[in-house]
Structures are given as structure tokens and as C-alpha cells.
């Protein structure tokens, strides 16, 4: 080491050689990138148990020789596809749960068709989820189940749990679930009631187009897409980096449209009137007060979540009626909390240790 300059002169030729090799690799791999498709996602073996309109219920085939008594129903966010929780072997939350002996079902959403623009919040909370719960009960032969909701799937699970507080939900796990919508500051500003005419939008487009939803997510971090493409080019020689980039990029851009009426309710009741936080929410005329939920609850939130900031998620545990409740704040962002290397190390083992003893 050159002590004066703080520069390791001996390493310079080695560094140059390494950079030249990477530049060559970038050119080769860059061509490969455009010539090949990404890894197959969501390939854990499953059976389609029930399909109705925008709703798909999957049952994943158990792997363990002995499983916990209480099955799990995962409720996905209505804006995104469920395969974020089942990326590739070794990076799949579903596979992890199956290996740890859970019986796993997932309520995943397909794009609502134009004629489904009139689907309302009550269709999701009072019809789709209870319908799936009945199918899980019938298929598993068990009278209770654990519900796991991711992001807005967590909001739907909270609404369901508060209306059907007498069961059959035995445990509730929410990932990055907003309750105080005032704290989603940028979304609040995008949907400022003085300027955002939700009725005009829904009446002209029917279902909210996925491009609009994707742009609103991307606007939260406007430089990040360009920066991620630069990083991809820098790391294109690295197969693992490229694989990971393709998986997450494909999922992030595979956004679903939202049914018009459902979006209208989200905007009016949650974004504008913050009814869930103000204990004034109702679905189809039925009060949905989350203090009525008394089952064990675990809420996992991400320290650097730019979509659901911590302040928006924090009141969940404060307001829930359960005595057995826990909030866990983990490093990571909105997606890396549940999928990817961080999740494997942090969230999944935590969830297993919490849920195992509540699944017998």
C-alpha cells in the first residue's frame, strides 16, 4: 500500500484487467439478456381449487411428511400477482412454508375484465374472501385457518377479520399493511380531493389501467428505474444479479388493473376520509372496526418502505383488539421484506417461529 496517497498502486493492473474482463462479459451477457427470457416464476406445484372471475384459489401440494393442523390462506394485494411469494426454488416463501410443514392456500387475483368494473369492496370482503375460506375449510377438513395478507391484501384481511370476528380466522398475519392513509403522503397528494376527480376517471376508463397504477408506484421514486437500469448494465456480467433483477422487474411491471368501483371506494373511504383509521369504515353496510379482531396478530413492517411508510402501518397493532399481538420491524423495503435474500434471513424464520406454536 502506498502510505502517502492511500492508494494501492500494485492492485491497479489487476483492477484494470478485471474491469476489461467485465466489459467483455457485459457485451456477451448483454446480447444473452435480450435473447433469453427470465427464470420461470411461481413454479411450486399447486392445484387450482376454485376460480371465479378475478379470483383464483390455489392449493400448494404439501412437501412435509407431517403438517400443522391449521391451514394458511394467503390473500394477495389486488394490484399485484401472487408469484412474488413464489419466485424460484430457494427464494420462495411458499416453498419455505411447505418445507416447514404448513398447508398453504393462496387467493390470487387475475385482471378484472371490463365488465367487472362494477366490482365493489363488498364483493372482495363479503364474497370472494369468505368463498375462499369455505373452500379451504372444505378441502382441509379444518374449521379454522390462519390468514396472511400482503399490503392491500392485508387491508382486505383486516376488513374481513373485523366483520367475521367470530371465526373461522384463528390467526392473522399482515405484511406492510396501511391503516392510517393520511401518512401515505405522496399518494395523498396524488389523490387530493380538490383536484383528483375520481368519478370522472372511473366513468371514462371503467377499470383503472395497470399503467396508471405502475406509474403512481414509480413516481414515488422517479429516479430509481433509470438508476436500476444503469446498475443492471454494470452488473450484467453477474448471472445471479441479472436473475434477481429480472424476477423483481418482471413482477413489478406485471401490475393488475383495479376494478373501477372498488378503486372509487378506496379513494373515497380510505384515501380521502381515512375511515379505517377513524373507526368509521363499513363494507356493504356492515361496520368494519379492527378493534373487533381479537385473534393473535403479527404485523411485519419494513424499515425503508417507500410505498407504505411506517407511520401509515404503525396504528395497526395499536388499534387491533387482540391481546396477543406483535409488530416486527425488519430491515428492507416494501418488496424485499417478503421476497429475496433479506426475507430468507429475517422475515421467514420469524414468521415460522411465531406461527408454528399457533398452528396446532
Amino acid at each position, binding site marked *: *500500500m502506498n502510505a502517502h496517497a*492511500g492508494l494501492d498502486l500494485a492492485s491497479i493492473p489487476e483492477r484494470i484487467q478485471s474491469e476489461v474482463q467485465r466489459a467483455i462479459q457485459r457485451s456477451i451477457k448483454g446480447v444473452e439478456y435480450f435473447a433469453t427470457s427470465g427464470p420461470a416464476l411461481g413454479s411450486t406445484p399447486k392445484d387450482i*381449487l376454485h376460480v371465479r372471475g378475478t379470483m383464483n384459489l390455489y392449493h400448494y401440494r*404439501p412437501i*412435509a411428511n407431517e403438517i400443522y393442523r391449521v391451514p394458511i390462506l394467503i390473500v394477495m394485494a389486488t394490484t399485484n400477482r401472487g408469484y412474488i411469494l413464489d419466485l424460484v426454488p430457494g427464494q420462495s416463501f411458499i416453498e419455505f412454508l411447505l418445507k416447514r410443514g404448513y398447508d398453504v392456500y393462496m387467493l390470487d387475483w387475475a385482471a378484472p*375484465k*371490463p365488465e367487472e368494473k362494477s366490482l365493489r369492496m363488498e364483493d372482495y370482503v363479503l364474497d370472494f374472501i369468505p368463498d375462499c375460506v369455505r373452500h379451504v375449510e372444505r378441502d382441509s377438513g379444518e374449521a379454522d385457518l390462519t390468514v396472511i395478507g400482503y399490503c392491500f391484501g392485508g387491508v382486505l384481511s383486516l376488513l374481513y377479520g373485523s366483520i367475521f370476528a367470530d371465526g373461522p380466522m384463528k390467526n392473522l398475519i399482515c405484511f406492510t399493511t396501511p391503516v392510517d392513509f393520511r401518512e401515505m403522503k405522496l399518494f395523498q397528494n396524488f389523490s387530493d380531493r*380538490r383536484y383528483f376527480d375520481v368519478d370522472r376517471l372511473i366513468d371514462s376508463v371503467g377499470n383503472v389501467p395497470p399503467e396508471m397504477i405502475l406509474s403512481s408506484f414509480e413516481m414515488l421514486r422517479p429516479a430509481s428505474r433509470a438508476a436500476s437500469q444503469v446498475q443492471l448494465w454494470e452488473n450484467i456480467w453477474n448471472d445471479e444479479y441479472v436473475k434477481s433483477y429480472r424476477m423483481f422487474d418482471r413482477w413489478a411491471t406485471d401490475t393488475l388493473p383495479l376494478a373501477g368501483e372498488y378503486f372509487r371506494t378506496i379513494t373515497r373511504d380510505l384515501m380521502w376520509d381515512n375511515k379505517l383509521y377513524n373507526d368509521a369504515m363499513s363494507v356493504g353496510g356492515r361496520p368494519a372496526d379492527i378493534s373487533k379482531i381479537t385473534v393473535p396478530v403479527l404485523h411485519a413492517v419494513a424499515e425503508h418502505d417507500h410505498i407504505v411508510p411506517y407511520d401509515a402501518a404503525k396504528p395497526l397493532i395499536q388499534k387491533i383488539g387482540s391481546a396477543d399481538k406483535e409488530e416486527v420491524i425488519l430491515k428492507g423495503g416494501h418488496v424485499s421484506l417478503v421476497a429475496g435474500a433479506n426475507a430468507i434471513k429475517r422475515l421467514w424464520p420469524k414468521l415460522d417461529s411465531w406461527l408454528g406454536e399457533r398452528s396446532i
Partner: protein
Amino acid sequence: MADKSNDPVAIWQNMMGEMEKGFNAFANRAMESPEFSKVVNQVGGASAGAQNQFGELMDKYLANMNLPSRAQMVSMAERLQSIEGQLNEIKALLHQVHHNSGAPAGGLAPAPRPPRTRRPPSAGGEQK
């Protein structure tokens, strides 16, 4: 090991990271203003209306040219999706019948489900 503070690649990557953070923070501050909301929603509202009118015009043009419109192509894709959906429903019904009947004549017996007897390690269960 090379000193990261003198590594041009590390400096470049660090600079990119800082630029990204700085730009995002700057843009977020700008987007928090009511003026931003006003402008975006005015432009967005106007463009949604204009897009609708333009779409109707294009539909007429394509019909005159005897070509399918995007809406018709989407409708065909939806019909395919609906057929796929119905196939899935049939598959789900078959699965249910198969499950209820136990061992259907001429068919494979349903895969046996593992027993629901697992216990967590904390309750004396074993991690398998």
C-alpha cells in the same frame, strides 16, 4: 485489498447511489406540493378524456380499413382467457369430485394428505 475510497468504480457507484437518493428526495418534495397535484390531475383528466375521443376515432378508421381494433383484439384475448378460466374451473371441479370420491373407478387415487399432527419445536416437535 484495494482502498474503496480510491477505487474509481466504487466512487462511481457511490456517486450514482447518492444522485438517485438526492433526485428522489428532491422530486418527492416537489410532488408533495398542492400545485403538483393540481397540474398532474388537470393534465391526467384532460388526457383521459382526449384518449377516449381519439380511441373512438381510431375505431372508426380501423373499421373502414377492415382491420380489427385494439379493443377487438383485447376482447379476443379476453375470450381466450375466459376459455382458459372455464378449463380451470372444469379442472377444479374434477379435482373436487376426485377428492370427494376417494378412489374413482379407473382413475388414480388422490394423493394422500400428510397427517395434521405436526408440532413446533418449542412444543417438543421435530423439524423435519
